[in-house]
């Protein structure tokens, strides 16, 4: 069953180190294809660390792995992911005449793949 | 390969060489003016035209961090005044935008198109010197230099507090070398410490103690720097923006500052902004007569006027408390403050001078009074403190205002009459500047004040920076569109058309200093700056074309 959540992409050390090595190697790929999710949300949706989930926005779909974060760190209903090719798929192109696509406040539907 | 050229039949105004409108030939070889060239040399026929040295701007703000924030800040300033590139098949120029703070290329082209060939950027925090030099690389045609801000330098404060005068001299010399700059500039000396460190306070008296420095006052900072620069023998003395700029009653501070130097040379910049009577926080009155009289009688003082011109301007200054004060009088909500570590403050606001506003009209009139009361044009030269009082592109209009009494009267009649009533009437109001006097206040005078021996005149050895104007009744028209402009002997404007691009050079000083001073500066920079000492000094490849102007000792 799909649930609507807010996705925040951002920068992480792992993604930074990964891209210095190569954008076509494992470290970067792992860093940019793992979404952080609130542990309560995870439990409710029956997800475990490493489970695959599908994220769908108005603009596209991508499949990533998930990993849990405690409620005090990441509130329920909010997802975090490092920037990378998967986030491109989800971003909308409307920049509201600013040049900036809405990149940090993406409404997505999250769905377990398994 | 000697390229030569001769300008014939023109009426030459070369006040430095006592040539006042005589018809003379000017000979040019390899970018310099020479006594003679072979008879068959290519000629420019300047019959019916006026020949002058290229203009020299002693004080403007055209390049560097502050100017660039002002550009970024104001798309509205650029949109209505664009500067297209020319036809690539004729000459490869760069496009840009104008307004009160033009882009770099446009700045260079517009100075050149107006017959100005040298300009000095007047306020650069030493830490950001590279930025100014980067922009200078993209400012075509003109030669240029800049002054470094040293009136609020924390390391110098510490040295002065402890009376380490010898070290101050070496430190200032090191700084001039490290930044490739031309002289030192004091802006509201002592004012940064209360501004940054004490809840945006400022300093108002020459004898006020500076917070945190028991022994320091603006007066001490000024006298120390005047002595230092004189000891170093810099071609241009300390360039001072006095305390209390823009405040009613500030003429007293200005007089005190001039007196504080004990007969040594100083240059007081945009003195119009420092010639106000009245009480603080009340409307100003004019004290131009008192200021002009003092300068007329004291040959150690030079000044540029800082004329206010009606229309849009950008107020940008290292005097951050001043910009903050101006926000009260501006209708524009934009205000910029920018602190530079251990060296300077900065404030920027978009501004507009309006004919019907009392203070603005008075400021405009005070500038004119200073011009008209000045007995020695060599020591009271033309500036608008571009873009503070007005833009450099308004110089032709200012020249007309000085040369054309009727034109001046018309304007006087159309501005705020309460303000005009405050101006002293008298014979001087009838004065009309002559072409020779204009040549002095726009080129020969600034060049002499700057100690630029190869600029501002047309004698042998001078740089072949030459402007040729069509004689015209309307002096604004005449001075805004010269028929020919030569820069270092290259014909840039040919029959009113921009024909050749040219890269100007950087003018800077390189006074000697004791290498040991680096061991004093180094630990301070490592502790209280955020770049390494070894990364502070600007390397030579930032100045691919440059000229070291010698000090009196070199």
């Amino acid at each position, binding site marked *: 069953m799909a649930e609507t959540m807010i996705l925040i992409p951002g920068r992480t050390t792992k993604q930074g180190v990964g891209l210095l090595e190569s954008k076509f190697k494992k470290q970067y790929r792992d860093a940019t294809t793992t979404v952080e999710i609130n542990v309560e949300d995870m439990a409710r949706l029956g997800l475990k660390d490493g489970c695959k989930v599908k994220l769908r926005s108005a603009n596209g779909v991508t499949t990533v792995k998930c990993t849990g974060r405690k409620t005090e*760190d990441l509130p329920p209903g909010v997802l975090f992911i490092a920037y990378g090719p998967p986030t491109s798929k989800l971003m909308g192109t409307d920049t509201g005449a600013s040049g900036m696509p809405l990149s940090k406040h993406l409404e997505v539907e999250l769905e377990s793949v398994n | 390969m000697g390229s030569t050229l001769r300008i014939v039949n023109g009426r030459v105004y070369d006040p430095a060489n006592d040539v006042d409108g005589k018809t003379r030939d000017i000979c040019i070889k390899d970018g310099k003016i020479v006594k003679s060239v072979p008879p068959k040399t290519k000629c420019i026929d300047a019959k019916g035209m006026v020949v002058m040295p290229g203009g020299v701007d002693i004080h403007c703000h055209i390049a560097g961090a502050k100017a660039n924030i002002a550009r*970024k800040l104001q798309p509205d300033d650029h949109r209505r005044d664009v500067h297209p590139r020319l036809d690539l098949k004729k000459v*490869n120029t760069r496009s840009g935008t104008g307004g009160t703070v033009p882009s770099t290329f446009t700045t260079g082209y517009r100075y050149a198109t107006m017959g100005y060939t040298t300009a000095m950027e007047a306020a650069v925090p030493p830490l950001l010197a590279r930025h100014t030099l980067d922009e200078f690389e993209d400012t075509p045609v003109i030669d240029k230099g800049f002054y470094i801000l040293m009136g609020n330098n924390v390391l110098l404060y510490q040295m002065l507090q402890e009376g380490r005068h010898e070290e101050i001299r070496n430190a200032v010399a090191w700084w001039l070398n490290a930044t490739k700059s031309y002289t030192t500039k004091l802006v509201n000396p002592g004012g940064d410490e209360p501004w940054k460190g004490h*809840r945006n306070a400022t300093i108002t008296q020459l004898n006020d103690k500076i917070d945190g420095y028991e022994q320091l006052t603006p007066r001490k900072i000024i006298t120390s720097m005047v002595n230092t620069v004189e000891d170093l023998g810099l071609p241009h003395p300390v360039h001072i923006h006095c305390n209390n700029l823009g405040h009613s009653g500030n003429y007293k501070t200005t007089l005190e500052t001039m007196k504080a130097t004990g007969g040594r040379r100083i240059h007081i910049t945009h003195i119009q902004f420092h010639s106000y009577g009245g009480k603080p926080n009340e409307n100003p009155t004019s004290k131009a007569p008192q200021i002009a009289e003092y300068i007329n009688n004291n040959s150690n003082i030079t000044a540029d006027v800082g004329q206010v011109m009606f229309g849009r301007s950008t107020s940008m200054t290292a005097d951050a408390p001043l910009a903050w004060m101006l926000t009260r009088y501006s209708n524009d909500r934009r205000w910029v403050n920018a602190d530079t570590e251990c060296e300077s403050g900065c404030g920027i606001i978009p501004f507009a001078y309006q004919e019907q506003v009392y203070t603005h009209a008075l400021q405009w009139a005070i500038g004119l009074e200073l011009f008209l009361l000045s007995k020695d044009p060599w020591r009271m030269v033309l500036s608008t403190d571009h873009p503070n009082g007005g833009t450099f592109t308004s110089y032709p209009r200012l020249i007309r205002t000085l040369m054309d009494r009727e034109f001046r009267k018309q304007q006087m009649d159309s501005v705020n009459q309460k303000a005009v009533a405050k101006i002293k009437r008298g014979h001087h109001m009838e004065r009309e500047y002559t072409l020779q006097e204009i040549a002095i206040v726009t080129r020969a005078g600034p060049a002499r004040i700057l100690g630029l021996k190869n600029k501002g005149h047309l004698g042998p050895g001078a740089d072949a920076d030459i402007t040729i104007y069509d004689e015209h009744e309307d002096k604004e028209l005449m001075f805004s569109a010269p028929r020919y402009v030569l820069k270092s002997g290259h014909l840039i404007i040919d029959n009113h058309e921009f024909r050749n691009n040219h890269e100007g050079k950087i003018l800077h000083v390189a006074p000697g200093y004791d290498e040991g001073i680096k061991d004093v500066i180094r630990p301070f920079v490592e*502790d209280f700056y955020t770049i390494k000492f070894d990364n502070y000094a600007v390397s030579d490849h930032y100045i691919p074309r440059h000229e070291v102007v010698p000090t009196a000792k070199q």
Partner: protein
Amino acid sequence: MGAATKAKSEANIKTVENATCTFCGCLCDDMVLTVDMDAKKITKAKNACVLGKALFLSHEEEDRPFALIDGKPATLKEGVEEAAQILANARFPMFYGMSDTTCEAQRQNVALVDMVGGTIDSTTSVCHGPTGMALQGVGESTATLGEIKNRADLVIYWGGNPAESLPRHFARYAVTAKGMYTPNRKKDRTIVNVDVRRTKSVPVADIFIQVKIGADFELLWALRALVKGRHVDPNIEKRTGVSLETMKDLVERMKNCRYGVLFFGMGLSMTRGRHFNSAAILSLASDLNEYTHFIATPMRGHGNVAGADIVVSWQTGYPFGVNFSRGYPKFNPGEFTATDMFARGDADAGLILASDPGSNFTQAAIDHMKKIPMIVLDPKLTHTAKLARVAFTTSHYGINTGGTAYRSDGVPIELRPCLDSKYPSDEEVIRAIYKRVEQLLKTRKKTKGANNKRRKAA
């Protein structure tokens, strides 16, 4: 440069002191690099953080062709010719990138776009472009980082995670740095962190304020109201997740500090509200100057992204999103910004300098890039290089190439390269393209648009 470069000849090991790391906006200039000249490797990078170490120690000159044309190896000259033909024949070429190269290359790049009458935008537009727009509306009160180190006794991080994106920000500039009036480092400062999630930057903060996602603007506006002494409805907590008590406490701290700073990240500029968020935080700092000295300054990511803004501004008057179609610069975010130009399908050619929009732009933009002839300059193989018509391999700025980079606070730093490269610098390649395009345009008789023929079969 010589003084700092000591050569130890025996093992052909060189030490380069005071080198600058260009990976992030901290632009640390205190690197001590040990370089094995034979292996062409940097073996030690003293003072570097984990990202800086990764940058230097993983540096390796990959053995790639000088250029690829349609994925096939080509010489530099062939690459330049192809690139020049594309640009000379384009009607509406889009230039993008510039945050990871020198100012010298950026300057040349703007010269090229000016000549071909194209459009130029930097990564600023997808980073703090909205903050640039906010500046144009309300101004800013800012400072170089050293002034903050020396004086700031209240430091507020808002919507940014420097612990991961600017790892030495705390130690060099704002938290544990020792300054003139902050001799006891963190003890002399109060650190506040405002964010929607508990990032790795939160542990250093004395106060953490967790704002509800999407409510930054409301929180900033409420703080402005409180600073100005206006009434704020306690219900604000429902909207922002922050109690009125917490807000009032923060406002008192802000008004009563000696020198306060708001560092803000893309958590404001990239999210709902964009330039309004940035304008709100800039205004909050400006308002506070009625009471004390207060600064607000964006935290910028890439090494020389500030340089891109600065160069484009001095050359055109505008910071990003500039079009030259009419022979002079025009500025219009949303029209001339890269995401829009590509996603709308306006651009008929592209030049990407030192950036990888192919990996981080929206899918619609990437799809369009695949359809048009693209030129890419990058030391590494990137997603964008893979979809390009011409891809140049260039040397790495800061490691192989000297030049200038501007720190996020506008302090210019001269880079100290430590290793030669067989590849040309970005600047050299752009210059070569420029020269060739100039020749083509000067002798051209026909009008533009020939790229229609050059389009890949879509």
